[in-house]
């Protein structure tokens, strides 16, 4: 009797012990993995030198060469497919990889090392690529081999800054690099970036009339967006197709639209600018020979104070508008250090004495007195005035009426633009 009770008790005890066995569902979160390469890097070679090994025929790399680079473009928007671009200090390189969603692993700014042995260098219409062999030509590196050749090192860092160049200075050494071209316009604004059935080319022109092709895949997620009519700054990977350079943007953030709020060239008149003379009989006037606005206090009845005031400018939907103009001056006013002042007002009515409104001085670059050359003003930040209605004004003053007490000025190309999206 006692034994059997003991037996049952021990069974009960062991069952309850067994029942406490934990069914593990509360899994530890894996620690954050900061990848580092562990292999020997004595056989490093620059991307430029690696690309230089390619001599026009498919090349199998049969030595243990290692390159490093930072990811400058991947497949996130779909404009690249199974492709990413890396860049080191010497050059950029296009990688052909047989894997989708590369961007989840290879973020922009990610530093990677590539063991190049057994990979292939080849070309696609003059574009040198690193990949694998497919039908005796360059092909994609099979997914299963990617992890055996490409290694992450550290977490993604800062993105590489694009190299700012002009279309006419592009050289083959820039191919597969991230570059930036400024003030381009689309030949055909208002078009889809690409048709839904095929990759599409758009021609971009710079201010000097040089043109370059922007090529967009129909798989990009922004194809239904329209090409802008404004001029743009473009960040893109430079590519080549036989003899033609091409640009490939990573996504629409690479197309920086230059939004224009004011673009006064005074080509044929003073436009709707207001001139107001506070003092003297010499006033702001349109100068037909220079197609600009001009003033000079020489020979006036009294010392001058004259205002050139813009029409009202609505900075609605801007984020960081910026003002620029160019100016020219001659003679020297010994009585005044800065005969020309740039001002801005939010409450000038559009006519009458400017003294009736509040004006704030803006800092601009003006040419030195008697310099006799046109000088750009630089970009004057109007961000404090975004989404406001403003007028800007050039206030001219002289201390007298002679060649040494008054200056001559010309103002032209007054622009307000916004280069953010």
């Amino acid at each position, binding site marked *: *009797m006692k034994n*059997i009770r003991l037996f*049952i008790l021990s*069974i*009960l005890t062991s*069952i309850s012990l*067994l*029942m406490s*066995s*934990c*069914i*593990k*569902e509360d*899994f*530890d*979160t*894996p*620690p*954050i*993995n900061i990848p580092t390469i562990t292999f020997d890097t004595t056989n490093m070679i620059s991307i430029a030198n690696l690309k230089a090994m390619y001599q026009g025929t498919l090349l199998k790399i049969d030595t243990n060469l290692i390159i490093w680079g930072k990811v400058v473009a991947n497949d996130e928007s779909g404009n690249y497919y199974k492709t990413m671009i890396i860049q080191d200090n010497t050059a950029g390189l296009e990688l052909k990889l047989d*894997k*989708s*969603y590369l961007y*989840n*692993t290879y*973020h922009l700014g990610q530093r990677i090392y590539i063991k190049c042995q057994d990979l292939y260098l080849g070309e696609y219409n003059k574009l040198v690529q690193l990949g694998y062999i497919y039908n005796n030509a360059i092909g994609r590196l*099979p997914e*299963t*081999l990617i992890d055996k050749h490409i290694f992450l090192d550290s*977490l*993604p860092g800062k993105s590489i800054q694009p190299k700012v160049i002009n279309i006419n200075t592009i050289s083959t050494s820039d191919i597969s690099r991230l570059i930036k071209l400024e003030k381009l316009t689309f030949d055909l604004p208002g078009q889809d970036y690409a048709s839904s059935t095929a990759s599409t080319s758009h021609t971009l022109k710079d201010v000097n009339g040089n043109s370059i092709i922007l090529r967009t895949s129909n798989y990009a*997620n922004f*194809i*239904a*967006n329209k090409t802008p009519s404004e001029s743009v700054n473009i960040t893109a990977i430079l590519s080549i197709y036989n003899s033609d350079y091409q640009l490939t943007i990573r996504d629409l953030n690479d197309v920086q639209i230059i939004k224009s709020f004011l673009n006064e060239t005074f080509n044929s008149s003073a436009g709707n600018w207001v001139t107001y003379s506070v003092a003297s009989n010499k006033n702001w006037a349109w100068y037909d020979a220079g197609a600009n606005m001009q003033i000079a206090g020489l020979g006036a009845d009294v010392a001058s104070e004259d205002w050139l005031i813009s029409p009202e400018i609505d900075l609605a939907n801007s984020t960081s508008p910026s003002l620029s103009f160019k100016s020219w001056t001659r003679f020297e006013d010994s009585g005044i250090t800065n005969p020309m002042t740039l001002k801005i007002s939010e409450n000038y009515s559009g006519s009458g004495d400017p003294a009736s409104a509040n004006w704030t001085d803006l800092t601009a670059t003006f040419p030195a007195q008697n310099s006799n050359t046109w000088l750009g003003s630089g970009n004057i930040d109007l961000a404090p005035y975004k989404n406001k209605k403003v007028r800007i004004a050039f206030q001219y003053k002289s201390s007298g009426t002679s060649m040494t007490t008054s200056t001559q000025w010309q103002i032209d190309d007054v622009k307000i633009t916004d280069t953010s999206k």
Partner: protein
Amino acid sequence: MRYKILYLLFLFSILSINLFSQTSTIRGVLIDQESQRPIKEGIVKIGDQEIKTDKKGVFEISNLKSGDIKLEVIADGYDVISEEYVLSENETKDVGTFVMQLKNSEISELEGISEIELDADDDYSGQYISGILQSSSDIFIATSGFVFSYAYFKMRGYDSEYTDVYMNGLLMNDAEDERASWSDWGGLNDVTRNKEVAPGISSSGFSFGNIGGSTNIITRPSMIRKQNKLTYSYTNRSYRQRAMYTYASGMMKNNTAIAFSASRRWAEEGYIAGTFYDQWAYFLAVERKFNNKHSLAFTGFSSPSRRGMQAGAVQEAYDLLDNNYYNPNWGFQEGEKRNSKVKSQDKPTFILSHYFTPNRKINITTSLGFMIGSEGRTSLNWYDAADPRPDYYRYLPNYQTDQTIRDIITNDWKTNPTISQINWDEIYQVNYLNSLEGKQAKYIIEERRDDNKQLSFSSLLKYYLNDDIKITTGIEFRKYTGYHYKTLTDMLDGTGNLFWVDIDQFAERDFAGNDSIIQNDLNNPYKVIKEGDRFGYDYNINNNYGLLWGQIDFNFDKFDIYFGAKGTYTQFWRDGNMKNGRAPENSYGESEKLSFTNYGIKGGVTYKITGRHYIVGNATLMTNPPTSRNSYISPRIKATVLPNLESETITAGDINYVARFPGFKARITAYQTYISNQMTVNSFYHDEFRTYVNYIMQGVDKSHQGLEIGADYKLTSTISLNAVAAYGDHRYISRPNATISFENGSAPDTSKTVYIKNFYVTGTPQTAGSFGIKYFHPKYWFFNANINYFGKSYLNFNPERRTERAIANLGEGDSLITVITEPMLLNDGFTLDASIGKSLKIDKYYINFNFSVSNILNNTELITGGFEQMRFDFVNKNVDKFPPKYYYGRGRTFYFNVSFRF
């Protein structure tokens, strides 16, 4: 009252009987625990007085001496019951009901394969129930329920929606799909053993019935055998261990009966890799007898569970790992196997029952039930990221064309578990890198929830008009609301910075730039989702149901005859909690209410040729409404119902020959059933369109015909032989119309004809047989063995391959047509099972040992389930591009069970 239950062997202790006048009387009734039917000709002994029970199981012994008496109940085939009482002078003592348990009934406690559930990619298939079958005394039914469950044998080829499961008179089948789930009370074997069974079309004591049979589980505590029982099991099947404790008081002196049971079944890993199992169960029932006319009983139980699921895989994956039990659902996370698909459920159920016997002829049972259930299935979801499932077809060697690459991948699969299983570390790292850029999570675990609340009521009247005629009638009502939604359960993120956005990413791809169509909820556009939030879809299904039925039984000398009829009313509607961007006008708020009125009639006759030979015939005609689950084209998205929603019609009949000799019992049955205008829904994830697709077939007509044979022969007093065989011819006999709906709206809903006429019904062997031998030693140990055969099983087919489009552009007689359209016959196979057991008594403790081994020959080549992938390569018509996925029956498994009863 102090009860003791003793075996016959230990009975002969000396009783002290005070010698007083012999004037007292004792009476009671014997019933069979399983069937709840009276036991006639049972022997009741008090001292040297002995009496047999009458045909209603009643005994009465008069002229007893007052004082202590000892009563023994002995009935052929049952455990002996022994009780002690104190009789007063001139007392007439009603000792109530003795619930008799069949000898060796503990064998049935070895849980069969029946509780396995497989996780197919579609939500609704793959569940198998056989609990109804194990409880029958019919040799065919009992065998097919137990040994055939290995191969998911479905009796007569019927799906589980044609089997009704009741508890205390309340229908327990799911209101939305009409399917019964035995796991709702899994682990409560001791207290759910009492069952009334109405196999197939038959006279039923509790409801109209269904063609797949019906069962009423009775949890009335006074009907549960008095016991204190402790059970421990050790096995290598779905779970590893089971511990269970049960207490039942029987009807106590204070007119109260209590039953309690609790258990746990668990495994850190079951037979299949990565499948953990953790199921608890608890049960409490209290009955109060107010007087001889009124009793009230309360039952409350639940069986909360969590378990890691198995998924079918393509043969290529099984071959790569040389393991037919490869499970792609799990991967290592910090050294532990983590399963991405976890099924959990908890369905607390409360039933209040009133038993009313106004007189000997009338019996009324009324029950009121309330259930508040939750059920969830987790799954990985991903946004603009690589498919995380290791067996995605592009990750398999055969997808590659280059032999070198194929060899490398083959080697990776064989050697690297981050390739062949889910790579959790990679998933976490991708999420982490995205968190650094402030982007949304790329991978999450979501849980698709199917919760519900249900109020049900039933009342059953039995009226014994006279000895020959019995009338049974009942009403049932059910008010149900199902809550369907998904929640984000794990962001798979260590930083806490990640989030998810509630848009349909696949609609986003197809409708780039359309801000509204991609919203899952236009009332909360671009909703930012954190862990625990609902997203994706959220809708309720309301379903009200009423049944009125009646049955009359005539019992004559040569004939037993019954007729029954039922009428039902069903009403259901959808109530959307989100305004879906793909159906802005048709998703939010209550939809139109649909209602259906249906009927059924049945009848049968038993012709008693002699007491040894019977001919039994049954027939039924009934209609069933479309289920609320099948009626909506894309219920997660919108309230649109299928065109031409109609009830299905069932006509069924069977004819049986039954032989009952003392040493030989046999039954031969021929049956024919037509199910017409059936509807089937398959909801699955489509890799190509990357969305859930609902594939609904309407106008499905099926014919189920076949033979069932069962025989039991007593070779000697200790050895008996049994044999059962089923031969079925279950086919589709129409060309259904399929409606296909993409949940991301990437294509409009379309419909097409599916050419599957004369295809075999799938998901079950249509031919099965078993031959068994049973040995029972008088010293309470037993041995039995069965050899089983399974054949004529067809793989679940992809209807898309049986459409005009699938064979378009193929010339007449092109051999490819056969390859594409032919259904796939699975291999047949044998299994061998055996078990051995011993019962013994030490002191007042009864100890039972059982050890059973299934599939002793370790046949690991028998495909017991699977499906053709729903994707088809329409362009190249290559059937091997998306090969079928299979499940293999388990190899050798064992089950060891020990129980103590006191």
